[in-house]
């Protein structure tokens, strides 16, 4: 029993890590008034590029770095279209996601051949757990929190750090001002463009890592559309958390718990009957996110200027 519970909770934290990293990036961007749907595509590209570079270099750290790079490039491209040229954020975001799906599908086959072999190509070395000496030996807490990849530790530093920057510094105040009313921010001498681009670059880094963790840490391969809507889930988690990093983490925890449970149900082959097919389990986390949104979503107030293009008129 002890092992099942600890295993489930450790899996929850492992699944939570990429999702929370992506959601944190999205939260920062949305606080600046930009709704970046292309986080889904950034993750997918991150997963793909990390896999390819790791496949050829056998070094997952190069994989992570290249995923970060491609994430930043995509986020900045999104920024050029939506922040600089003030195009519709929803349309650009959706288009980029469709492009990401098609492009990764295409390049994967261009590299590994046009048929999908029975055994898909995989990488030998992946990002593995880095137990923290001492701490990882503590019963219960140790295996759950201190026997994870370095990115989990990074996440648990970034969440409170983001909270502090958002609410306790001038930078955070100015970033939030851009998200509430970019015209006012601009009038008062806050460089709206700068804040939005920096936020996007941060999201690119975090989204790239999040995608890479899927392909070269949790699995050792790349699968078509392997993000499977996790980017959208990240956006839902930002909304659910009321654009607050701490509350967002709670929501992510709930979601990751359900997903970990779902994986376990699948693996254990429990009651996979006609009325409870494994596809139902696959649907569960999305269903939970939707129900949570219906229950709490109406009371949440987001950044006022979210998703509204800002054009400077002088």
């Amino acid at each position: 029993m002890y092992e099942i519970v600890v295993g489930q909770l450790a899996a929850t934290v492992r699944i939570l890590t990429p999702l929370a990293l992506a959601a944190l990036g999205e939260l920062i961007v949305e606080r600046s008034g930009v709704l970046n749907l292309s986080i889904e595509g950034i993750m997918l590209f991150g997963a793909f590029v990390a896999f390819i570079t790791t496949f050829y270099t056998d070094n997952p750290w190069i994989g992570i770095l290249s995923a970060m790079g491609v994430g930043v490039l995509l986020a900045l491209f999104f920024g050029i279209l939506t922040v600089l040229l003030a195009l519709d954020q929803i349309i650009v975001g959706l288009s980029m996601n469709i492009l990401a799906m098609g492009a990764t599908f295409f390049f994967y086959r261009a590299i590994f051949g046009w048929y999908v072999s029975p055994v898909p190509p995989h990488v030998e070395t992946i990002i593995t757990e880095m137990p923290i000496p001492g701490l990882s030996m503590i019963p219960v807490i140790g295996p759950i929190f201190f026997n994870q990849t370095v990115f989990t530790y990074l996440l648990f530093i970034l969440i409170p750090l983001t909270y502090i920057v958002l609410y306790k510094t001038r930078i955070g105040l100015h970033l939030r001002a851009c998200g509430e009313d970019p015209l006012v921010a601009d009038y008062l001498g806050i460089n709206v463009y700068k804040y939005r681009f920096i936020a996007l670059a941060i999201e690119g880094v975090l989204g790239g890592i999040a995608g890479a963790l899927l392909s070269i840490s949790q699995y050792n391969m790349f699968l078509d559309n392997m993000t499977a809507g996790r980017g959208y889930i990240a956006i839902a988690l930002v909304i659910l958390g009321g654009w607050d990093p701490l509350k967002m983490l709670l929501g992510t925890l709930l979601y990751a718990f359900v997903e970990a449970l779902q994986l376990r149900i699948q693996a254990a082959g429990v009651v996979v009957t006609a009325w409870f097919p494994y596809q139902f389990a696959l649907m569960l986390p999305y269903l939970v996110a939707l129900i949570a949104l219906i229950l709490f979503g109406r009371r949440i107030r987001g950044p006022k200027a979210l998703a509204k293009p800002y054009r400077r008129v002088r």
Partner: protein
Amino acid sequence: MVHLESSKDYVVVMKGITKVYPGGVVANRNIDFDLKRGEIHALLGENGAGKTTLMKILAGCLLPDKGEIYVKGERVKFRSPVDAIKKGIGMVHQHFTLIPSFTVAENIILGGIGGKREGIKLDMKAIEEEIAEFAKKHGLPINPKARIEELPVGLKQRVEILRLLYRKADILILDEPTSVLTPLEVKELFEALKRMASEGKSIVFVTHKLDEALSISDRITVLRKGEVVARIDNPKSISKEKLAELVVGRKIVYKAVKTKTLYDKTTPLMEIRNLKVLDDRGVLAVRNLNLTLYPGEILGLAGVEGNGQRELVEAITGLRRVEEGEIVILGKKVTNKPPKYIIELGVSYIPEDRTGRGVALELSVAENLIAKVHDKTPFSRRGILNLKSIYSFAKEAIEKFNIVTPSVKTPTMYLSGGNIQRLILARELSFKPKIIIAEQPTAGLDVAATEFIHKLLIDFRNSGCGILLISADIDEILKLSDRVAVIYGGRIVKVYDEVSRIDLIELSKYMLGVKTE
């Protein structure tokens, strides 16, 4: 004019300012304007005369196409409002530049200009103390911890002024600052402005109200259609009539002829009983409101913006859910009935948000004109529109209501604000309304359009219509109304049956909630 720009007495000299908007509208044509140290200078003109454009250029919000600006003897070229504030020039815009969800202190320090503290870390406690102190010193006390969205308009304006002072502005531009204030608040604002001027600050007071320009300013510059038509160095030497002529460009011939009191209290048109309505945030905005409208009267609803007026109007017109209480129109209960039902009872609505709620901007003039009757003969039969009768009706309406438009098929977005309002009036008043809900019907319009609308409303009142007039402009309420109801905190706190006997200070106190019955 001899080299004003190098004179020590003139803090601002603008020469030959021209601004053409992308659409081709010339907002400013070769304007000269100057401001002396320590004076209050009124920039007077109708809506659309180019006052705001000129001042936005001075405050760095807009770039001029032509012209030179000198500040304190130095030639300047502002690329942003920050450039202007660094030279001491700040502006209080008509639409406040505050962030509603932030506190007073956060709004004041936003942008990081002015004040003692620098650096990344925000020590809000110290900042709040500093700002409370600063506000008190300037005779404009405020609670720095309050959220802007919770403050009444008068205090929001105070925050704007405080922020300019905090940013060390000594040239203050106020754009129509009295339009949202009660008479009592206007008096206080004038005192504050005079005090600031006596301390050496220079103030541009932008207004379209003659009385205000005459009572507060040391000098007046009059703008009309983007040009300076007069400079008055001694406001005491000019009569109000002469000034009005300068502003409008012709003699005002029109006078509304209001027949004697004709409403009778035996047959109410609309009765509102114990009404409760929530606002967007789910907070009670209308609490136990009672109000009765009689035929043949204009009932003015006076109140500071944000006291439930919007929610009340939306409840009457069927656009917002009523939580409790009832609305009875012509003997029929209309509480929570769909808007169409209420429209068909003869309720017309002239909304404040003309372009958002009043018209569909992409649709043509003709389509907007029949928007409420498109499913009735002769405009359509069995779901098919009858374009011939639509266009002939539209042409008639355009003539009758003086709508200036290239054709009936022109998309409404190409019309000016005044013409959009005429279009809305044409639609709302063409089908024999029994009740008219008029929300800020003349806000932002020039004198000619305002007169036209006032005359229409009075004509309808004379013919037995009941009109509920919601206006932030006290002068308009007093001019048109037969009775005045004061709304505060979602309740009617006072009803005046005789408009001529209203004491303005007492009215202000009711509006501000200082006094209740």
